């Protein structure tokens, strides 16, 4: 079943077409990667899905609901969460507080509840705190929960960002280069972790990634973007052999020269 469908999505910045008539059919519970050279429009597409940049043309449907004209916060409420290429945490809040903010769509407390500490509010807060603590454990940040996000080591910040995204119990998670800056061992662990998100928590994963070991190891479907245009789509083995993909990455000529060794 399709969870996210992008039809003919185009996003322009002045004269530059960042995403050009892009179609994507994302199957529920799949792990789907978008790859492409720098500036291919991958992150721009993420920004279109999350409502940060409304596309000029085309439409994106999530579970059958059109996302047209929706603000990012409403889209978050529908069950889409994301992480950023350059980690964007709430730096001066603790790890736990970051996760609590992530739970925002799941909580209901209003200003009045907060001032009066109604029984309903106290129950909700207590459960939210417990849930946040569980997530701290889940991503392996035990003992770091009360540290300010900006004081955490890099790897921990990455995991905290995922925990914050998980806190809203999303159905779809957009991960923008989750293994950037990690060594091979850390990347392998991150891959296992992402697969667990899908297998255990039943979250569909849409991934942007440059590390080909990760992409080829984890993806079920890969979509290749170049200059905003989709140039290939298919399972990893097929993408690895696709001459247009090799050309996009290494330039014309390289495709014939290098053949199918690696991308």
């Amino acid at each position, binding site marked *: 079943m399709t969870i996210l469908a992008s039809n003919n999505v185009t996003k322009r910045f002045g004269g530059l077409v960042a995403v050009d008539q892009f179609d994507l059919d994302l199957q529920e519970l799949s792990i789907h990667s978008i790859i492409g050279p720098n500036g291919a429009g991958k992150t721009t597409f993420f920004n279109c899905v999350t409502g940060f940049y409304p596309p000029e043309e085309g439409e994106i449907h999530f579970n059958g609901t059109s996302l047209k004209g929706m603000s990012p916060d409403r889209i978050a409420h529908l069950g889409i969460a994301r992480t950023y290429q350059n980690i964007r945490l709430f730096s001066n809040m603790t790890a736990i507080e970051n996760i*609590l903010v992530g739970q*925002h769509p799941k909580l209901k*407390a209003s*200003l009045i509840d907060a001032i009066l500490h109604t029984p309903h509010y106290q129950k909700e807060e207590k459960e939210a705190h417990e849930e946040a603590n*569980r997530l701290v454990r*889940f991503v392996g940040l035990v003992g770091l929960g009360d540290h300010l996000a900006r004081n955490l080591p890099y790897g921990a910040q990455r*995991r905290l960002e995922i925990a914050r995204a998980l806190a809203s119990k999303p159905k779809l998670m957009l991960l923008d280069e989750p293994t950037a800056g990690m060594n091979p061992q*850390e990347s392998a662990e991150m891959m296992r972790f992402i697969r667990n998100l899908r297998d255990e928590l039943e979250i569909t994963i849409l991934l942007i990634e440059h590390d080909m070991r990760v992409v080829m190891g984890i993806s079920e479907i890969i979509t290749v973007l170049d200059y905003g245009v989709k140039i290939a789509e298919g399972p990893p083995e097929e993408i690895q052999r696709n001459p247009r993909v090799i050309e996009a990455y290494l330039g014309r000529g390289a495709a014939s020269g290098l053949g199918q060794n690696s991308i």
Partner: protein
Amino acid sequence: MKKRFSSLLERINERFSSPIGRWVLIGIVVGLILILPMINFQQRAFWVRVIGYTGLYIILGLGLNVVVGLAGLLDLGYVAFYAIGAYAYALLASGHFDIHISFWLVLPFAALLAGFAGILLGIPVLRMRGDYLAIVTLGFGEIIRMLVTNLTDLTNGSQGLIGIDSPYLFGLELKTSTHFYYMIFIFVIIAIFVTQRLDRSRVGRSWIAMREDEDAAQMVGVNTTRYKLLSFAVGAFIGGLGGAIFAAWQGSIFPDNFNLMVSVNVLCLIIIGGMGSIPGVVIGSFALITLPDILRQFADYRLLLFGFLLVVMMIARPEGFIPSRRRQLELHAEELAHAGPAEITTEGGA
């Protein structure tokens, strides 16, 4: 000197950051404040006025702290809401229009009116950040001051409004500074209570998240439009409350009471105390409002000395006297009722 001053503050901070130490300190301060008007000493009337006035600024500081400290919206026109609250009470409880409504009825109305003005100011500045927001709010403050100066039919212009009614409490007319001293004290406690609860709630967390990264906050589901307006409204509500109390205490108000310096002072006391920190607002108010009066004995050198202290303070401790501290929320394994599937980790990273 910078180092020594800073480490001294650090030591004081450490000493009073244990729960017992903190409550002892709060108890001493509250006790001193409560008994001050009862002690018979020569300058009692002066001190009651100064500390009462400081309390009024604590209320204003707590209100603006919601906007600047928590939500991160730089508002330089906060005095506007103070003025709206003051004029609302003065017009509805004085001989000017010969309307005399009870203080306790007008007070919530004045605060709500200011809160509404906060939303009105908020709507056009929703998309602005940083310096631009500061300039527009600065203009808003001036607009309100110009309005009360020039709408002479309504506000009596620069002649001001005089003969404002005193509040009555169970038949007792509240008219002396000591009465207002205690009344302000109670409102300070309420304001601390309310803003602290907000700070720790879903609402406060959303504000702080917005301050830290507006886009990311929106991406996790915070309706930034609503929360910005909410912070303007809450801040303005508290400012309006302070204004109404001020008008009732003074018995007369003039447009000059609501000049830019009020906004600047309130903002400064937040910065000096520590952005987003409630104890910081209290300390900042004493430093900025009480201290200049203590320095009165140095007569002409007063402001020079005061300015010097501010500069030293900002060099030695730019984060403020009592920087905002986040609460410890991590539970230990045994406190966590039913720990989830903690086995799936990406341990070994970092």
